[in-house]
């Protein structure tokens, strides 16, 4: 096989390029070019004055980056984003896996119905959901505090207390997002051969052994996929705090993307915002690499 591939005629290569060209062109023009422009932007102080007259833009090297790293707001935003990704991500995955296991169990009836119910939050518009949840979280009139009061737990200022605002956002995001991952897990579970479970059962393995020794290892590729996709999505947290808290109180829910949006499209400091975008890109890249490495070590 390999010798044949080596002797592939030159025209075949040309033909391949020809067929790839439309896709490459689109990716080049609409992805790589803007990315390159953004990289260039991130070493200038292009802003409102720069829009007025290009001559007002200075090339400032890495000053955007050094300034960013010296801004407490950036570290707050980064910490919030990590908080959201590393608490919210595992919670979402756990909830999704739990729901998938339940729905794959032979004991559960009306599976189609529950699958739809659990998936519904995912397809609902986030802004509408966020507005409804804002009511649920209301300190005095919200449903959550009403329930807690019945249990004798004092009112929690969900979105107004800097300590509770992020957990409140995580709770909503988990509720909204777990349905999608659940579907992927269900698909993954279905591809595990039934015989393995039968054999394990005959050998006397209980439900926990079966879960840890069969389900989890067989599900590992799905798990990695879900973890990576969820994490990348969660690092880009934006709409939830944008609608529910505008990043407050005390910036406790300002994410890196929200910070970037504010700097870029509210204050028009495009150069600085581009630098934030690249730092976020590096963070996500690094986190993804770490996850793949962990997966390889385990395999």
């Amino acid at each position: 096989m390999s010798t044949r591939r080596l002797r592939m005629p030159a025209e075949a290569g040309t033909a391949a390029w020809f067929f790839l060209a439309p896709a490459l062109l689109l990716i080049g023009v609409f992805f790589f070019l803007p990315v390159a422009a953004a990289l260039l932007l991130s070493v200038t102080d292009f802003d409102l004055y720069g829009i007025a007259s290009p001559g007002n833009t200075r090339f400032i090297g890495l000053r955007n980056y050094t300034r960013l790293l010296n801004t407490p707001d950036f570290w707050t935003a980064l910490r919030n984003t990590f908080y959201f990704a590393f608490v919210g991500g595992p919670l979402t995955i756990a909830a999704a896996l739990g729901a998938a296991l339940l729905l794959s169990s032979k004991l559960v009836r009306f599976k189609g119905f529950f699958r739809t119910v659990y998936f519904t939050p995912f397809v609902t518009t986030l802004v509408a959901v966020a507005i409804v949840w804002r009511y649920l979280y209301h300190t005095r009139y919200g449903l959550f505090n009403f329930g807690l009061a019945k249990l004798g737990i004092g009112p929690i200022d969900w979105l107004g207390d800097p300590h509770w605002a992020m957990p409140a956002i995580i709770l909503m995001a988990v509720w909204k997002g777990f349905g999608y991952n659940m579907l992927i897990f269900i698909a993954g579970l279905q591809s595990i051969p039934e015989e393995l479970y039968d054999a394990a059962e005959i050998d006397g393995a209980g439900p926990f052994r079966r879960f840890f020794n069969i389900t989890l290892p067989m599900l590992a590729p799905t798990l990695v996929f879900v973890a990576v996709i969820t994490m990348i999505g969660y690092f880009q947290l934006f709409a939830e705090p944008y609608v529910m808290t505008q990043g407050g109180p005390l910036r406790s829910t300002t994410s890196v993307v929200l910070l970037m949006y504010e700097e870029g499209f509210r204050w028009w400091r495009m150069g600085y915002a581009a630098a934030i975008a690249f730092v976020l890109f590096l963070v996500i890249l690094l986190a993804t690499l770490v996850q793949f490495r962990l997966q390889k070590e385990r395999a």
Partner: protein
Amino acid sequence: MGREGEVVSELIPDFERSHPGIKVEVQQIPWSAAHEKLLTAYVGDATPDIAMLGNTWVPEFVALNALEPLDARVAKSADVKRDDYFPGIWSTNLVDGVTYGVPWYVDTRVIFYRSDLLAQAGYDRMPTTWAAWREAMQKIKARMTARQYPLLIPITEWPPPVILGLQAGSSLLRDDGRYGGFRDPPFRKAFDFYVGLFRDGLAPALSGTEISNLYQEFERGNIAMYISGPWQIGEFTNRLPKELQDKWMTAPLPGVDGPGVSLAGGASLSLFRASAHKEEAWELMEYLSRPEVQLRFYQLTGDLPPRREAWRDTALANNRYAKAFHEQLDRVVPTPQVPEWEQIATKVFEHGEKAVRGQRSVDQALAALDRDVDGILEKRRYLMTQRKVARP
């Protein structure tokens, strides 16, 4: 923009009838999207002929060199009479002494209060000095439960601390808008007063999004005073129950030792430099500036007119809630006319919030505020040394 955008469409047919040959196309945008839309329009060379601009945006669009100077046109105009406008409002449209906008409606802040609660505390009218105001709030607080407050000022709004600063005589920025001047004694005094309102339990530390139904809280007597703008007259009239209608009032803001200043806010009409129909556009601006058209606009929106002549009309002169605004409009001052102002304003309440919540002392918060503001103004300082930007 917003409700004004819908209403202006109703004013246009009359204009088109009296100005044959001119056809006006109105584009409505929600307030929240307008700023971004106008900036992208400028970048894409697609600016409108005229636009309504929040008057704090004027310096920004002047920095872009997007607006047409209007002095020559105003001087010749029979409709736009500069002397008839409240001076504080007119001055928000001046950058470096040049006029770039004509005030369309005004927005300033006054106090809305429960007159019955104030009366129970022994006052037949709103006090006019900080000390007396504070004392009145303490007396009201003494008659309230722990979760009721004499005053509501959302801590995510910049106008309250800024107004108090202006009342104490602060210029907010110093050296022609090169640096923040928030550590200077006048602002410090105002900030101390502001933070004290929360620390002493006279106002709750709530952000804007946490107050879900202001009118209900007002009705239940959970708050007795609220600092807000003209649009609330309509809301209070419509949303408060009948039996409460003679129990609320508006009053001009108290000041350090007597009636205080407030913000010269509002919206202006501006002509874009790139317009191909400047004469026609100016005719529309003149039309919209006529007192009778402004009154119709007021009746449709509740937005208050910027001209004294319009205020002489019975519709406004007889509105008892509008009276406080009329009085306040003689004492309004603009915020610093630098393009960076809106960003600086958010820093004011962010650091205010930290001090209110006790994370920082007043001095620490003000030092951090000045540091942030100096950073925001760095580009402006650079361009000023290059003589590329206007001074306020």
